[in-house]
């Protein structure tokens, strides 16, 4: 099919690819070198966040929190209204969004400076928080 060959043709790789390969391999190394240390730290941070979390906006309404976050950061967080996990609010700290729910927080931060696409954000959460967006 000519159409496929035309529209699936090879393209040039972005110039940043080399830099990303040569940069400190932050996406691979932590998993190998300090996996258990990171796991312990992550558990501790989630627990601490659950204890000390003070939201800037107090709300259990996903659409209200979604709109609040969007207005302040431009980040569209697809919180759903299925109530498996109870929301408590949200806040923005140093450009990082923290969505609070009953037993912890979901942390969202820019992974780089590019356009507002979800792939450019990093998300840190533990399993129950997935239910905030997924049914």
């Amino acid at each position, binding site marked *: *099919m000519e*159409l*496929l*060959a035309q*529209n*699936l*043709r*090879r*393209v*040039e*790789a*972005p110039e*940043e*690819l*080399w830099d*990303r*390969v040569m940069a400190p*391999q932050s*996406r*691979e190394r932590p998993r190998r070198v300090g996996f258990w240390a990171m796991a312990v730290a992550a558990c501790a941070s989630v627990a601490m966040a659950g204890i000390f979390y003070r939201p800037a906006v107090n709300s259990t309404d996903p659409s209200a929190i979604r709109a609040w976050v969007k207005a302040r950061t431009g980040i*569209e967080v*697809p919180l759903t209204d299925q109530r498996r996990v109870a929301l408590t609010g949200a806040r923005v700290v140093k450009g990082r969004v923290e969505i609070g729910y009953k037993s912890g927080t979901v942390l969202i931060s820019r992974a780089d400076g*590019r*356009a*507002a*696409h*979800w*792939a*450019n954000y990093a998300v840190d959460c533990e399993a129950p928080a997935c239910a905030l*967006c*997924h049914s």
Partner: protein
Amino acid sequence: VTVLDDHDVIAGCRTGDREAFRALFDAYQDRVYSIALRYTGDPAQALDIAQDVFLKLLNHIGEYRGLSGFETWLYRVVVNRCLDDRRRLRRWTRMFEGIFESASEPSALDQLLRHEMEARVQNAIAMLAPEQRIIVVLRYTEGLGYAEIARIVGCSEGTVASRLNRAHQLLKKRLKVR
């Protein structure tokens, strides 16, 4: 495009020679990125995949034992990474499909139409089963023959032919091509 089957370059990479790795990277970067882009339809995800593939090359080139051609081995690494990525990121990409803001190019009508058609094709490709999609990408992005695809994917030529044939039927329907 340089075809590298130079044992010296690969041997250099094995000993940590940065120039050898750069030569390898230059020869294959477009191929690796293109396969990832055509498979995922997402430049950011494709960049992640390409980065991982070259990191694997950098750190694990010792796993290439020279039993198959280097190109075949590399394609296999890319294909496995694409299929693996699908499993890990499927939920996220589905959720945020609507949010992606592509940087659209200038306004010439032909460019617009070309982009539109490219997007239509990419969308149609995205709806194929992963096993069909990767074969379509290897066939049309890389121009590989059935035998080579079969070696990379690890199936028979007959399976490649039937998956490609099935993919053609589906794409014709979706793109309304006569």
